[in-house]
């Protein structure tokens, strides 16, 4: 299975993603944001960091990079799965590929710590092979407060992927991650790639990446 990691200027979790994706059995390549062809990847991974410094709003300037038009087409044509973590999630919402928006944590501060998240919808290619009901995954963000006007819409369409057990940032409905309607895009604030090994935590993050690989292989 081939994973492509998109690297924007300012992305800083690209190498972490490479490490974890290899751990989960993917062949991994980097995709510089100017690049225009991503068809060959089974998984497109948009990692965390501060693309363009997050200067206008988190993720706002990255959506104009040429590669994002390709991501849009990739999703439309259902070429594979798109996973956006942290800044990746912010970019996907800014680009309109996921609903809602991410805004400043209600504490107004950056938060770096381990949190527990419940797996809400397991009937998706991303989550169907996750065995646990709840996972311990690190967060590290200043703008992870998820907001959507029509929360019920998410709920009714099973678009909620993960919920915080103990809401750290003020997200509506404790939302930690959501899907798009086609279930081929997942955005989440917690960083599974930072907990892909026992020595880096308890390894729970690997569960998600392994689940994705298995689903892609069994398609």
């Amino acid at each position, binding site marked *: 299975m081939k994973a492509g990691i998109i690297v924007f200027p300012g992305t800083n979790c690209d190498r972490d993603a490479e490490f974890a994706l290899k751990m989960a059995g993917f062949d991994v390549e980097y995709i510089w944001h100017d690049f225009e062809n991503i068809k060959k990847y089974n998984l497109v991974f948009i990692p965390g960091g501060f693309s363009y410094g997050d200067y206008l709003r988190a993720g706002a300037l990255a959506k104009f990079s040429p590669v994002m038009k390709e991501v849009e087409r990739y999703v439309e044509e259902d070429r594979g799965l798109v996973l956006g973590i942290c800044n990746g999630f912010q970019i996907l919402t800014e680009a309109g590929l996921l609903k809602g928006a991410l805004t400043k944590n209600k504490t107004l501060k950056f938060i770096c710590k381990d949190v527990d998240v419940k797996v809400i919808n397991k009937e998706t290619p991303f989550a169907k092979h996750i065995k646990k009901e709840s996972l311990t995954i690190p967060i590290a963000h200043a703008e992870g407060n998820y*907001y959507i006007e029509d929360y019920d819409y998410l709920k009714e369409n099973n678009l909620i992927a993960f919920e915080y057990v103990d809401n750290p940032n003020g997200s509506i409905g404790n939302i930690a991650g959501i899907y798009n309607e086609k279930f081929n895009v997942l955005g989440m604030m917690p960083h599974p790639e930072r907990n892909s090994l026992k020595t880096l935590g308890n390894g729970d993050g690997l569960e998600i990446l392994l689940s994705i690989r298995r689903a892609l292989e069994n398609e």
Partner: protein
Amino acid sequence: MRKFVFEALITLKNGILDPQGLATQKVLKRLKYPIENVKFGKLITFEIEAENEKNAEELAEEITYKSLINPVLENYELKLLKEIEA
């Protein structure tokens, strides 16, 4: 070509939590100021080169709506401030 200066005033939509405003208000109230309803927004100014005022305004609108704001969270008001020497 002519050059126009614009100012975009960007505010949070009604109902969106403004933690910065709230925190600032709390601090100021603790200092005993008779203050309410503190709200944080953004002020972005920029210059547009265009043939005429109308074109400039259209471009400025497009830039503001498509790039400078997030319509899920924010409202904006765009003002043409002045024309300057190109």
